[in-house]
């Protein structure tokens, strides 16, 4: 519940890598659906006496209407406030007491909750998720107390120049589609959302028809299957949630924003509209991302393995001492999303210089095909990231669920194969198609003088 995942921000959340065929001998997933619509994916992995239980709901800031932004994230907070069977505080307490860890997070496209537990305690996770799928309380007092907490969370983000810039950039890039507002929501909306709004949102989107349960770990598949039936089958199916109707019109000219706030450094962000996760250009875009800034890590929490310092943007912007940080990010999304660039301008250099160098790199990848070495490197990096992710059942469940949310979980297992058929011509073509001036939104953070004084 301390995470908001921004599909276009932060390389740690990018969707990418790999597949089973090259690493696993067998997909080894049991897939089934209950009559009420709940989809279930079970994957036995016996590397450690641990199991990870995830429930994914197909709801996020993408499903929010004007005036109610931030409501999905707020509902996620309320899911820790208790049910009749698990009163407030007991979910965290019991999971901790049983040696587990848990979290929840809200993204543009989905909301997910997990408990990773010693394998013999998995049942606790199942009971919690089955119960709070339908029985969360939404006590009015808790709603009010959480309003302060969430506004406080937003205010913490507002302290960061990159958050302010991203928020402006996204709202400029999307004028029709709800990807234009941040997961946390606008502060004015957070002030006015009511308990009834939250309750309605919960009842609309939290149900077996709109959820996927993913369990990976040291489990007896048959026993877990029976237990899942027992706990989740009695939950009424409900009616399907309303579809998201908004379609972002094609952009016809560059859009720019300059954020002027007190600060100490200059930041650049830029974004280009790209297709959704199921579009065939998805994999070429991932390879483009890897060539420009290295393959994205697939590990969740814990150590990541940076691969960006031998990539093109780092060489062109950081090695040349124009920027102290530079990269890009691409996360496949349900609806057409963004390919995102970012840089921190080095002291003494200018936003103009950094932006010019960035577009020079973009032009280079449009003008010349990437080398075979760069392609091979992107694939080997993906293979390594995939192997690292396999060390942990939490990571495996995360990736099965993430891919199921935006496309299909089977992508987890075919990932390396899918990447391996991408050609240099594909990469060049997607760069030429999407990374064009009429399709770009550019944001500058220009610091004004800080007002800071020790007292």
């Amino acid at each position, binding site marked *: 519940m301390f995470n908001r995942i921004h599909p276009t921000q932060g390389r740690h959340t990018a969707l990418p890598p790999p597949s089973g065929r090259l*690493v696993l001998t067998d997909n080894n997933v049991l897939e089934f659906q209950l009559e009420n619509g709940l989809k279930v994916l079970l994957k036995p992995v016996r*590397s*450690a006496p*641990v199991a990870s239980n995830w429930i994914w709901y197909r709801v996020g800031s993408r499903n929010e209407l004007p005036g109610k932004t931030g409501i999905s994230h707020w509902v996620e907070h309320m899911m820790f406030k208790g049910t009749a069977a698990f009163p407030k*505080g007991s979910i*965290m*307490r019991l999971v*901790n*007491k049983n*040696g*587990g860890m848990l979290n929840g997070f809200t993204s543009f496209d989905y909301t997910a909750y997990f408990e*990773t537990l*010693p394998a013999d305690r998995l049942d606790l996770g199942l009971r919690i998720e089955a119960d709070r799928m339908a029985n969360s309380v939404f006590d009015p007092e808790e709603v*009010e*107390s959480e*309003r*302060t*907490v*969430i506004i*406080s969370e937003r*205010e*913490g983000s*507002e*302290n*960061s120049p990159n958050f302010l810039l991203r928020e402006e950039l996204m709202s400029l890039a999307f004028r029709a589609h709800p990807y234009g507002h941040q997961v946390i929501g606008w502060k004015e909306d957070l002030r006015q959302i009511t308990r009834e709004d939250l309750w309605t949102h919960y009842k609309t989107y939290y149900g077996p028809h709109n959820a996927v349960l993913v369990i990976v770990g040291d489990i007896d598949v048959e026993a877990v299957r029976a237990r899942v039936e027992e706990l989740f089958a009695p939950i009424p199916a409900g009616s399907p949630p309303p579809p998201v109707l908004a379609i972002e019109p094609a952009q016809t000219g560059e859009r720019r924003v300059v954020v002027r*706030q*007190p600060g*100490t*450094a200059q930041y650049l962000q830029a974004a280009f509209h790209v297709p959704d996760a199921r579009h065939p250009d998805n994999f070429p875009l991932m390879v483009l991302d890897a060539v420009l800034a290295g*393959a994205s890590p697939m590990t969740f929490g*814990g*150590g990541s*393995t*940076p*691969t*960006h*310092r*031998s*990539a093109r943007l780092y060489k062109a912007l950081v*090695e040349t*001492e124009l920027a102290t940080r530079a990269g890009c990010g691409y996360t496949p999304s349900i609806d057409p999303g963004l390919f995102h660039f970012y840089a*921190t301008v080095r002291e003494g250099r200018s936003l103009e210089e950094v932006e010019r160098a960035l577009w020079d790199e973009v032009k280079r990848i449009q003008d010349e095909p990437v080398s075979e*070495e760069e392609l091979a490197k992107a694939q*080997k*990096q*993906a293979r*390594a*990231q995939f*192997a*690292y992710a*396999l*060390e*942990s*059942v939490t990571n495996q469940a995360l990736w099965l669920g993430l891919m199921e949310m935006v496309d299909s979980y089977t992508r987890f297992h075919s990932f390396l194969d899918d990447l391996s058929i991408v050609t240099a011509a594909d990469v060049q073509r997607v760069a030429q198609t999407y990374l064009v001036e009429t399709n770009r939104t550019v944001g500058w953070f220009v610091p004004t003088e*800080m*007002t*800071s*004084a*020790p*007292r």
Partner: protein
Amino acid sequence: MMSEQGSTPGGDLTAPIGPHTIRRFTLSNGIKLIVQENHTSPSVVVRGHLWAGAINDPTEQAGLARFTASAVRRGTTTRTFQEINEITESVGANVFVSGGRHLTGFGGKSLAEDFGLLVDVLSDVLLNPAFPPKEVDKVRGQIITSLKELENDTRGLAHREFRQLLYTKEHPYGRPGDGTLESVPGIKRDDLVRFYQTYYRPEGAAIVVVGDVEAEAVRDALEQALGGWSRACPGAGGTVQPAGAPPPFKIPEVRPLTERRRYVRTMTNKTQADIALGTIGPARTAEDYYAARLGDLILGHLGLMGRLGENVRDKQGLAYYSYSSLEGGLGRGPWSVYAGVNPANVDRAIESILVEIARLRDEPVTDQELEDGQDYLTGVLPLRLETNEGIAGTLLDMDLYQLGDDYIIRYPELIRSVTKEQIQAAAQKYLDPEHYALVIVGPYEGD
């Protein structure tokens, strides 16, 4: 000569990691090598440390140790920085060197098939750094930019200023390990070379390898790569390291506060204020460390940020985050509370935090809290030991703090034997609602 110190037989053979699985070797030059095979994924992790840290920074050169650590990876006598990046990243591997308070950590990660390459690059970086002047300048520029960014980061500033207030500038714990905008511009290449020559040496170094590898093969590879390391830095001018042990490692004495110290930095353009409040806690090796650890867990972690989460965040809705932290390592680290709050709530939040600190001293924790805390600490262990990195970090700590290879087996008993009285005694010894350091950074005018 290399030797293998036999594992103690008779450990609990059902435990996943213990004397029966941990392999220990000593390289010819005394470097300790600890290997744990783990064949669940085709990857491998290396983690190690040597005795060079911010604690060795001269007073006027805060940031030297970390600067040096960032610079050693920036080129060797035979490889440029870009070549190092290219060969490691091309196979999805990573090699790092990172300066800490007492130690400099190093290591990396790769597919098991690339372990040879990982060891080759890591040892090259440790043994043959060239400190190319151009790269040194780049690193300095990056550190300066990040220090400037820190000036705009309320949370980061609260942490930094808190340490300085708690330990004062006179103590190395009070000086920022990243350096300051005053110190870093003055640190020259020669300073890095000198620091490297003095402190980067095999004596006392330890290396842990965990993953899809075979222990003897690991030993052979590391013996070949690092076993001959006795003098350093030919690339930095061919200077031979002085013989003998490195300068003695000594942490100046830490004195508990006898007054209340307060520091406010007003930043009017911000929307949230960050608070740090605390005292000096125990070292990791202190007898009452586990009691303090449980007390800290109950104060600010267990469930949703413990009692602080329940009362400051949840019940009063004062903060987005409010948690405690016990940082004792080789020396006495802070025992502190951090919170991010709306500026209007700063005073009330501080008051609530002090109430919780007093309560932990004045009353024993409940049976339920003690049991929950013990269940958590013992139960969560398998999760910690799931990944190669988790195992490697645990094994390195076990060695550093001399906990013994059977520590993981003994651990439940260590935790279960802590009593309510011991927790209260630890709270009374280390926490103090009257004498503490308090830092507030953000849009807060205060008194």
